Structure formats: C-alpha cells, structure tokens
C-alpha cells in the first residue's frame, strides 16, 4: 500500500480542532476581552503570574501543545479552504500556510527557551 502523510496530518488537524474548540474560547475571552475591558482583574495576566506559569514544566508543555495544535489545525484548514476562495493549490500557498505554522512553532520553542533560561 502506498504510504501517505495524510493520516498524520489529519490527526494533528483533528486534535487541533478539538483542543482549540475546547480551550481557545475562554482563552480569547480572558486575554482579549475580559481583562482589556476591565471585567476581569489584570492580575490574572500579570507579568509575574504568566512568567511563573510558563517557567513551570507543565505550564510550558500545556502552552506549547495548545499553540502547536491550534496553529497546525488552522494552517491545514486554511490551505484546504483556499480552493473554495478560488486560489489554486500549489507550493506557494502551502509555504504560506504550513510555513506560517512552522514559524509559529519555532517562535513558541525559542521564546519558551528564552523564558526558561532567564
């Protein structure tokens, strides 16, 4: 049988879709709406709290998994949707979508390491 990348990509896509659906709404609400509008205490996202969370191995791991899976879900979905927008598939759209996810993943790794090696 021919080997295909598809199952691996689909697993990331499905996992990312489910995880982002479960976790991102509350994240977006807290970080992007609740705290900026003053409905929630700014302490929740203070420098010290977030630093402490991300310097903890579990915190960093959870953060990375959420960001990583969400990025790849979004990239794959966007790439596949390009066809619906009249943009043909190809190397450049692939580079932009999956490359974007790769850049994001790299950013997560690099800056988490920076935060750890303070």
């Amino acid at each position: 049988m021919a080997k295909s990348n598809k199952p691996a990509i689909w697993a990331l896509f499905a996992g990312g879709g489910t995880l982002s659906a479960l976790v991102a709404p509350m994240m977006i609400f807290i970080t992007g709406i609740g705290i900026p509008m003053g409905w929630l205490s700014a302490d929740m996202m203070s420098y010290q709290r977030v630093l402490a969370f991300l310097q903890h191995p579990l915190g960093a791991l959870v953060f990375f998994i959420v960001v990583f899976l969400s990025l790849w879900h979004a990239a794959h979905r966007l790439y596949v949707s390009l066809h619906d927008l009249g943009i043909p598939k190809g190397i450049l759209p692939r580079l932009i979508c999956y490359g974007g996810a790769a850049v994001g993943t790299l950013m997560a790794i690099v800056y988490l390491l920076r935060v750890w090696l303070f």
Partner: protein
Amino acid sequence: MNHRKEYLRKHSKTWWLSKSFYTRYMLREVSSFFIGVYMFVVLVGLMRLSEGEAAYNAFLLALQGPWSILFHITAFLLICFHAISWFNVTPQAMPLYLGDKPVPGAFIIGAHYAAWFVASAVVFLFAAGGV
C-alpha cells in the same frame, strides 16, 4: 500525460454568499484563520514576556486598544461558532460503538459540550488563581 483540454466552469468568487448553507460553511473555515491569528497574538505576548516586564506591560496595554478588542470579539464569536459546528459533526467523524450498538450522536455531542464547559472552567479557574 493529459492532452485533452478540460472544460473548467467559471465560478463566481462570491459563490458562498448565494446560500446560507454555503455562507455558514465559509464562516466556519474563516474561523480557523482567526484562531491562527490569535495564536500569533499569544506568541507575540510570549516574545514580549521574554523581553522583560516593561515590554510585556506595553503588550498588555496594546491589547486594550479598540481594534484589538474588536478583533478578539470577532475571533471569540467565530471560534464559538467553530466549536458548535465541530461538536455537531463528531458523531459522523468518529462513530462509536458499545459492542455492536452505536452510541447515539446526541450523546457524543453532549459529551463534547460537557468537556467544553469543564475545559472553560479549568482555564478560567486556573487564570483566576483558584487551582
């Protein structure tokens, strides 16, 4: 090698506006773009965090800007829409059987909503310092 000239019917670029079913479909797919952008907002926040307290506080201030809030409200609404439609589809994507009896779709969907509630509560409580 394909020597025939295929007939490619032209589609309007706004085909998805013609029916509400199509529009909802496109809205769902667009939600993924907003999830991606939000993740980059989070990553920029991480970057500012690594640059020190002053840089991070400047980032927090930027989040209070009207365009930022507008973006986050839009992203929030779209991702809720994504979640609801995603859960509704899981019985088809992941048919479950207990022995040889199929698990009812409503049960699978309901379980996802319960998980959604629990996950949201966990995120909130953790952020609020309760955990």
